[in-house]
């Protein structure tokens, strides 16, 4: 069974600064997808960024980018120019051949003005 570990329960950052959230996973599969989801205090979960394991290039979506290290099974999220609206829970998730997602426990990010 796959496991996803987010070792940082809470993180904080000053507005306009950069923060990196960590995620590691364990799998014996070679083809899979990794995701970062954001869950603001209003609860609705939204997809932030997605990475296909077969792609060596790290995914980027505007201020959000990932550092995908397949051999190390590491998938960190970097948020640049942090904004107050980035305050949320962030979940790392894995989907393999079963198409059933496994989520980490989440990291609570607070952006301070």
């Amino acid at each position, binding site marked *: 069974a796959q496991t996803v570990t987010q070792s940082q329960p809470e993180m904080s950052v000053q507005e306009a600064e950069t923060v990196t959230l960590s995620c590691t996973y364990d799998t014996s599969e070679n083809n899979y997808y990794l995701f970062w989801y954001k869950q603001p205090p209003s*609860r609705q*979960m939204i*997809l932030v960024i997605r990475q296909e394991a077969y792609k060596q290039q790290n995914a980027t979506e505007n201020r959000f980018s990932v550092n995908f290290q397949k051999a190390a099974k590491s998938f960190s999220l970097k948020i640049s120019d942090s904004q107050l609206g980035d305050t949320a829970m962030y*979940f790392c998730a894995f*989907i393999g051949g079963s*198409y059933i*997602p*496994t989520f980490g426990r*989440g990291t609570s990010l607070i952006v301070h003005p």
Partner: protein
Amino acid sequence: DAGVTQSPTHLIKTRGQHVTLRCSPISGHKSVSWYQQVLGQGPQFIFQYYEKEERGRGNFPDRFSARQFPNYSSELNVNALLLGDSALYLCASSWDWGDSYEQYFGPGTRLTVT
């Protein structure tokens, strides 16, 4: 276009009772998944349905059941409620079951069991 909708928003039940949660997917989406999110944890997968058939089931007891209707809406049923069933129940929809990474989540139903 409307997003994924769930009803009710909040629900309070007593131990031993039964509960039904409802989900309407985004128009055109044929797959619905259900998750349980206990406070302080990530979502745990319960079920996935596609074209009215169960395509995946998580590690939950038989007290949990679900179904999908011809219009692709879905119900999650939980029997003999336990205190530990208190959680946020999330529904997510996607175009098809193999495309589960393109999931769109609803706002959730907060279930409290007393």
